[in-house]
């Protein structure tokens, strides 16, 4: 009888431990999924700004058709990306294409002076900042999830129930589409 009670107690304790660890993994997985949703919101915002930007530049440099096409194609690919890896690759291509678009705009001082272009550029820059932060938060969430998935005791539960690894969102941070010097001028430094 005693051994039965002992076995039952051990089983109950194991069951409780399993539930706690399982719930922790689920929470971390949900957190990373939520963080990815935040990345998607910011990426969508960037994608939404592009058609206006292309149209604005087109009004001044209609003959740069190749550049506009590459931006549009890259945007479409980015919107169609289904996985994190595909999204990262597509965003890198889009960033490069946008970089070329801004290089074209550089040659047209009148275009750069228009309020519409300046506003779009400013919004795009702000969105890129937000994407950078959202990406950082997502990668932190994935790191926490992966650490839990790979370390004992949660790894035992992760092995029993399928907790798939999550990819990091790796984009080329060095190349930003928007040239930053233009609108990052700040008011004069204060003392202190």
């Amino acid at each position, binding site marked *: 009888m005693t051994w039965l009670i002992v076995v039952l107690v051990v089983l109950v304790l194991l069951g409780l431990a399993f539930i706690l660890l399982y719930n922790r993994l689920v929470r971390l997985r949900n*957190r990373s999924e939520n963080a990815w949703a935040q990345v998607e919101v910011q990426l969508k915002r960037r994608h939404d700004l592009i058609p206006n930007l292309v149209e604005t530049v087109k009004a001044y440099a209609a003959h740069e058709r190749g550049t506009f096409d590459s931006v549009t194609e890259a945007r479409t690919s980015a919107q169609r990306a289904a996985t994190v890896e595909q999204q990262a690759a597509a965003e890198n291509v889009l960033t490069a294409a946008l970089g070329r678009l801004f290089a074209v705009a550089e040659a047209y001082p009148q275009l750069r002076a228009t309020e519409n272009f300046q506003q779009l550029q400013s919004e795009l820059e702000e969105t890129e900042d937000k994407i950078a932060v959202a990406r950082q938060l997502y990668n932190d969430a994935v790191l926490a999830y992966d650490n839990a998935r790979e370390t004992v005791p949660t790894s035992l539960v992760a092995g029993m129930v399928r907790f798939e690894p999550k990819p990091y969102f790796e984009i080329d941070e060095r190349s930003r589409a928007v040239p930053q010097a233009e609108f990052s001028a700040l008011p004069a430094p204060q003392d202190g």
Partner: protein
Amino acid sequence: MEVPWLTIGATAAATAPWLLAVTLVYLRRRPNKPEPGPPTLDLGPEPPAIANLLVHDFRVTHDAVPATLIDLAARRLVEIEEREPGSYVCRLEKRSDGGLTSYESRVMELLRSRASGGIVPAGALTTGPTKESSRWWKDFRKEVVADAQQRGLCLDILDGKTFRRLTFAALGPAVVLGLMAGETAGLVYWVVAVLLLGAIMTWHTQRDTPAGLAAASRWLGVRAKLADDEAFRTQAPIAVTLWERHLAYGAAFGLATAAVRAIPMGAESDHRAWSSYGGQWRAVRIRYPHLVPPGWGIHPLIVLLRAVLALAAALFGLWLAQDVGSAGMLFVATLIAVVAVAGLAALWALVDLGSTRDVTGQILRLRTHGDDDDKRYYVAVDDGGGSETIRAWRVKPELYTPLRQYEVVTGTITRNLRYVRSIHPAVSQTESEVGAAQVAAAPRG
């Protein structure tokens, strides 16, 4: 002993009307509970610290401080960066901070006072030692309340006139007791009554106004909406870039728990500190040696004298214990240990008698330990050597008094026992050190 029923009865009878008056005043003036407004994400004009007061029964909670910092970040006056997962730094932006409220300026000032090169790790954003931190917090709270009152959102629960009246009314039962049981009893009664009055009234210092109640209702609606998003609780402080001012209000409402945990902005720890002396921010541990190592911070001559006496006593004990059998082995072992420790202390003291060196560094902590009979004064100085653990120097009270935390000082200390012969503000500091010392000087209220 005879129970003075008559005195007790008369005092109770005289007290009852006074207590009734106090209770009535409290019940009439305690803040009303606002009805939560419809859930919304539309923010009102009040800053997060005021919103914090409004949703917490017209009391400011500690979350108002990190909430204010996050709000400054949302307004691009401060940038919060992540250095590595879970580790954040605040960077002062070179923008005009005109138009800030007094408590927002206080937070900015704290940031400036702690920053080195315009950067301060979130962990280093403390409001000073416990006593100083408490004063800082009280001043912050007063400023928030004053701003809320100026906006017509709340009033003092007890104005001076009512307080004086209730205090005067307490004289009635005090005089009754004084006449029946002596002047002292009457005086003590009156003091206790006034203290009780103060305690009751400080439970709620502020009461609502119609405008305050309406604003509180609106903010409760914002809180309800933010609380709907479970992920909000796990947002790091850098998420302010995404959530903007909503994260600050979430922090003020006690919802953005992860963000607040990352920048607690409370009293500083005695044993952990952040130091930027030497150019790089780093976390250090601080120890306040007392018995180990022996003779720490004591004049080498005194240590030498004590060590020689201990050595003599231990050696004498060993000589006496020559004939002790195995039963006395523990005693012998203890004496041998005493000989070893005293010998080492004597050696250190001997070396220290003829050698001192000057050490320049920044004071990270100024602390006293022990009771009044044996108070020890410690100065933890980071000399920029990169050490992870700093052993605080023990100094004489007269050397300790003029020192200020975060000041750059030069101490003349002995090599082993770290006996401090003199300590004074560094004269030959580099410009950056001077700057760091100036900006890092602890806020003094």
